[in-house]
């Protein structure tokens, strides 16, 4: 029984962490799959969104859920503008140019936030009903983790439906699989990309806000967790919503278990596992084989 509780608490903690990873990373995976654009500033949008959420709660007294909606909308709008103004100019540029541009953008985001708001961590106070412990029958666990898992499942379900059952979802899938063919069928890839880019950044903002309880929120957020987001995308495969979901859960749970039982290893295990996995399957665990 004790053993069962142990497993339950481990799964709950790991899956909750995985959900945050999924919500932030899903947009990165889709935009990368669509355009092959390496957007290292994705973590920056998560950071900006988290700030929008935290500051709206602090200064305007917005509730947690309205603040999340606000953060999503603001970040999606801002990223759509950036996409049209800056990103669009680099679609045909080399990968190195894209990487340099987006990493430069990250540094500018970090510096601007540090200058305007300050280098310190932004506390994001959860509503009291989400704090504390909840009784799940077999074990007591952190309420917020359980809520996060439920929210994550709802989001995955929604995204899956949107991807599989709507016109725009079909267009995205078509474009990820074969961009030229999709283009020649009359699908407007540029418009599609702006929409997915804005939506993905909005999701990142949501992840920034929802995950602040675990990951904190400070200017360095944009770079600190980028490696994790990239690992999730690499393992999950480009442009695959379900792949990213499984990868995020896998990494969330593995990271949690390894940190709990072998804390001496630190984060090294996850990196080592990722390297081994990518040597074995370069297209990711759930990605389609390159043709």
């Amino acid at each position, binding site marked *: 029984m004790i053993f069962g509780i*142990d497993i339950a*608490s*481990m799964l709950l*903690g790991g899956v909750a*962490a995985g959900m945050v990873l999924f919500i932030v990373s899903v947009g990165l995976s889709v935009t990368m799959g669509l355009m092959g654009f390496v957007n290292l500033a994705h973590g920056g949008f998560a950071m900006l969104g988290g700030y929008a959420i935290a500051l709206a709660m602090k200064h305007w007294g917005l509730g947690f859920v309205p603040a999340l909606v606000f953060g999503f909308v603001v970040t999606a709008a801002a990223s759509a503008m950036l996409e049209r103004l800056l990103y669009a100019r680099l679609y045909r540029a080399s990968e190195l140019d894209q990487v340099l541009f987006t990493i430069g953008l990250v540094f500018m985001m970090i510096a601007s936030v*540090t200058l305007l708001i*300050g*280098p*310190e*961590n932004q*506390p994001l*106070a959860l509503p009291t009903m989400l*704090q*504390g*412990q909840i009784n799940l029958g077999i074990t*007591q666990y*952190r*309420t*917020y*983790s359980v809520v996060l898992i439920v929210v994550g499942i709802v989001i995955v379900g929604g995204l899956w439906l949107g991807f599989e059952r709507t016109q725009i979802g079909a267009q995205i899938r078509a474009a990820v699989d074969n961009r030229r063919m999709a283009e020649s069928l009359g699908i407007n890839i540029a418009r599609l990309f702006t929409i997915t880019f804005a939506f993905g950044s909005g999701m990142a903002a949501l992840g920034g806000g929802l995950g602040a*309880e*675990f*990951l*904190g929120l*400070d200017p*360095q957020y944009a770079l*600190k967790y980028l490696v994790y987001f990239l690992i999730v995308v690499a393992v999950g495969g480009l442009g695959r919503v379900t792949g990213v979901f499984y990868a995020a859960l896998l990494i969330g749970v593995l*990271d*949690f*278990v390894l*940190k*709990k*039982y072998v*804390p*001496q290893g*630190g*984060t090294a295990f996850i990196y080592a596992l990722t390297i081994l996995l990518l040597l074995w399957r370069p297209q990711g665990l759930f990605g389609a084989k390159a043709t």
Partner: protein
Amino acid sequence: MMKRIVAAAVAALAMTTSWAQAQEVKVGVNLPYTGIGAEFAQLVDRGMELYLKLNADKVRPYKITLIKRDVKDPGGANAKIAVQELLTQDNVDILAGWIYSPNAIASAPIVTAGKKLAVIMNAGTAQITNMSPYYVRTSFSMWHAGYALGEAAAKLLNAKTAVVGYTDFPPGKDSLAAFKRSFEGTGGKVIDEIPMGGAGAVPDFTPFFQRAKDKKPDVFFVFVPAGDHAAAVVKTYAALGMRDAGIKLIGPGDITQDTKLQAMGAAAVGLITMHHYHADLDNPENKRFVEAWKKEYGATATPDFMAVGGYDGMAAIVHVVQTLKGKIGTEQALEALKGWKFASPRGPISIDPVTRDIVMNEYLSEAVMKDGRVFQKVIGKIDGVKDACKEQKIGPCAPK
């Protein structure tokens, strides 16, 4: 003839400039003004500036010029370069600063080669002052709080078992060693030691705290660096219901840093810390200090133990400048500081003439709610604490 006049003029000029230099003491300050340590740099910097501002009459007739260099990060390499440049390009008379232990450790050979008094205003790894004969510390050693808390946990909190969670870098390991040594020396038992990631980023503490909770200790001793880690520690402790499970969270004052405490709110209530300073200390020097700080930097601003490290460090430098009448010889400066006594906001302090480390009081405090704010109530005090590591030559300070 003309040549002679020019030579005389040059000589005269040289004399006036050297006379002017004797009046001015250049202090080379190295702090992480940008990057993840920017917040700490600001606290120490403000502490130094506040002392100079409040004590302008104690500095006269000399002039103290602060030359500030940004060391950016805790990596060591940048700090080493900054210290070298301060010594060779700016020709400073005294060095000061050091937020991070790795930076002080990396700078030690340069400080030794440069032969200038170097005042450490924060970095707390115990053996740092052994690494260069010119280091003098006005902040603290990890052993001041860690060692004292080990004993207090066993005797005052009646703890039999403890789990230690620490951030995996030199001061963290030092803090673990200090606590373990005295806790086990007083009859307690450390049943688990959990490294909780590096100092650069605040990790998700859930897996580490879950592990600690499963071990069911009487106390959970946590060392994290000052700054943003503490809020996450307190949050995770509350969210995992560890208090209800009967596990007391204790640690050095980094988990209740004044600048972060109010944002934690009610979740901080019940935390027990051992430290040499918090802004709620009740003594006349501290009242003046806190009042002056709020007047200078805003009503919501508060000093903390880092600010005091800078403030007292500058007091030490002013003492040296006065004693040596503005002409800073390094050996004489060290002599002037050995045994120096000062009424600090943290209570009476002095510099141990043997180890060049600080001697000060340690306060056992409990966070309580008072008038709608978190207040640190002193529940125990130990006078004149020396760094146990060097004092007893144990742990990392044992002779090799």
